């Protein structure tokens, strides 16, 4: 694995001067993942905060080739780029290895872009799709997505007098990707650079479709001080609200926190969950804890080698 000193010798994939909010986690996702590539990369991004804020004409923050097409088609767009690359390679017009990396927000990935992503994964293109997951449609002003956790306040499922924010549990996109039987699926956080860059290195070392789902705290949509971005991500990991794990060729490898913290430690610092701490919502909080535990248990069971099945 490349050390930080080694990573620091590589050209920064992003310049400063983009217009992401101060403390936004999305550019951290991009930098940590792309820096892990020792080969050149080509990037496609879906519409969303990352894309609009890094590419306001004539200012592009991308030091690597970059293409934005539309919101729901990063998977398909990258399929085309990769297909052309394979064609040129076959014809001997290019021999340089390139890592193709598509970025999509959770909206562009879990929801409107799910089909395009699924198609790209199923067709087996040699690309890495990274969902920078801030758990809502941030670019359009914090609307709910399929990735928004239960209880979160969003502008399309707000907490109100008779409602406590999002009613549904979030869908498990990482497992949907595992079900595609692709060679590598990872779920991670920013806030542990060594784990994230290692996962990215792993992804880049494998040919075929790879998927990474990276939790990215958003200070605007989640409501917290901008310097807490990485801390919050770590709390998501430590409470198992956002398990960190990878699935390589179907084999699960889970990062376990030293001590599993109660989920309220993660929820409490965030404005989007503030209403949950009002009297009367104890049951909902308990529900959330129970669901975190249930999902964590389910995940651990996938890693555990099966025993005693011979009877």
């Amino acid at each position, binding site marked *: 694995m490349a050390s930080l000193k080694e990573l620091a010798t590589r050209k920064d994939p992003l310049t400063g001067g983009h217009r992401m909010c101060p403390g936004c986690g999305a550019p951290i996702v991009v930098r940590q993942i792309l820096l892990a590539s020792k080969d050149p990369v080509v990037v496609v991004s879906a519409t969303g905060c990352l894309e609009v804020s890094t590419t306001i004409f004539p200012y592009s923050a991308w030091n690597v*080739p*970059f293409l934005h097409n539309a919101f729901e088609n990063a998977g*398909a767009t990258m*399929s*085309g*780029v*990769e297909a052309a690359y394979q064609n*040129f390679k076959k014809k001997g017009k290019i021999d340089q290895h390139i890592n193709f990396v598509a970025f999509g927000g959770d909206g562009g990935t879990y929801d409107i872009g799910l089909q395009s992503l699924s198609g790209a994964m199923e*067709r087996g293109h040699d690309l890495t799709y990274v969902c920078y997951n801030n758990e809502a449609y941030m670019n359009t002003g914090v609307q709910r997505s399929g990735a928004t956790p239960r209880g979160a306040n969003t502008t399309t499922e707000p907490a109100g007098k008779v409602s406590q924010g999002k009613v549904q549990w979030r869908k498990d996109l990482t497992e949907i990707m595992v079900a595609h039987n692709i060679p590598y699926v990872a779920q991670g956080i920013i806030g542990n650079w060594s784990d994230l860059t290692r996962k990215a290195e792993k992804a880049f070392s494998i040919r075929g479709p790879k998927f990474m789902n990276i939790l990215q705290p958003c200070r605007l949509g989640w409501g917290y001080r901008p310097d807490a971005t990485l801390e919050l991500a770590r709390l998501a990991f430590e409470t198992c609200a956002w398990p960190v794990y990878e699935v390589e060729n179907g084999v699960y490898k889970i990062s376990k926190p030293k001590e599993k913290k109660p989920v309220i430690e993660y929820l409490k610092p965030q404005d989007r969950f503030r209403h949950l701490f009002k009297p009367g919502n104890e049951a909902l909080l308990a529900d959330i804890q129970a669901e975190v535990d249930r999902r964590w248990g389910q995940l651990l069971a996938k890693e555990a080698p099966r025993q005693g099945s011979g009877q």
Partner: protein
Amino acid sequence: MSKVVARTGNEAMAEAMRQINPDVVAAYPITPATEIVMIFAKYVADGLVDTNFVAVESEHSAMSACVGASATGARVMTGTSSQGLCLMYEILPIAAALRLPIVMCDVNRAISGPINIHCDHSDTMAARDFGWLQIFSEDSQEAYDSLIQAIRIAEDPRVHLPTMVTTDGFIISHCLDRIEIVEDKEVKEFIGGDRKAANSLLDVKKPVSVGLLDLQDYYFEHRLPVAEAMKNSKKVILEVAEEFAKKFGRKYGLYEGYKLDDAEIAIVALGSTCGTAKVVIDELRAKGIKAGMLKIRVFRPFPAEEIAQALANVKAVAVLDRSDMWAGQGGQVFTEIRSALFEAVKKPQLLNYIYGLGGREIDQPMLRSVFTALQSAEKQPLVQYLGVRE
């Protein structure tokens, strides 16, 4: 040396695609265009082309993948129809704004609803404002010839716009026709080697960013060149057609006049209807009636001045639209022609017939009735629906 063969429209287009041998094709099946994709996939499977074929999971992804592939500098083609084209709509103007010369085989089919697989022009006409060149074909031969020309036109530095060549669903796409096929080598020569793109997304040494967000200060400046390129493309279409005629003998223009020079009454039509109309016109001419036709080949760019000039001396003209704008004002072709004639000092009386929706047959008696009506055009309503039951 060319050879004469029997081919359906779809086969003819697939054959042209094989000869063009694009770098990437991304496509999805839809009646009546499916065969193009299937035949081409077989060419790929048999190693007859060098293309990387992306069998995407939707037309939205087909066009998205085309944009991605084309941004690398690759020569890219696709094919679709109706609902598939509708699903691409979001991405079509992006392809134009990024100036990507993607070439599409578009088989005209009615748009839902109700769902219908047969020919009309509603799918293609609804795509007329997306910055794509649109070339219509009267038969398989024209489709084949135009597809080959389309590569040259789209990739010409004065154009750099995506282009669709259309056939009429089933009427052309599925009917065997006698067509002349040029030799592979000659197609290759005519196209002139690989696409030459100024930038490639794969150029990792000189990274570019493509598809940026424009605010109020740049969007307009990025859209206007599409209009300019569209204007310039007329000249390019004619140049390419001339070279094509020199090499292969078949002549093409922006439009074709059929017995139009001395016509007193005429129709304007596009696509397969023109073939039927030619028979009716010949018949009327034999009876001494000065009937004629203006067949539009290129709908985008719209040859407004050329058409106004060509119709200047005709007394009455019926514009046949195989689609409606649902504006209560007639069809798309009619609206364009009416506007083209606005400044003309000499102009015919205009009528509009909307016909053939959802594959409703257009036959000789119907066309004869149009010419009959034209003989007393002043008594006719402006817009009529032809061949629909009351």
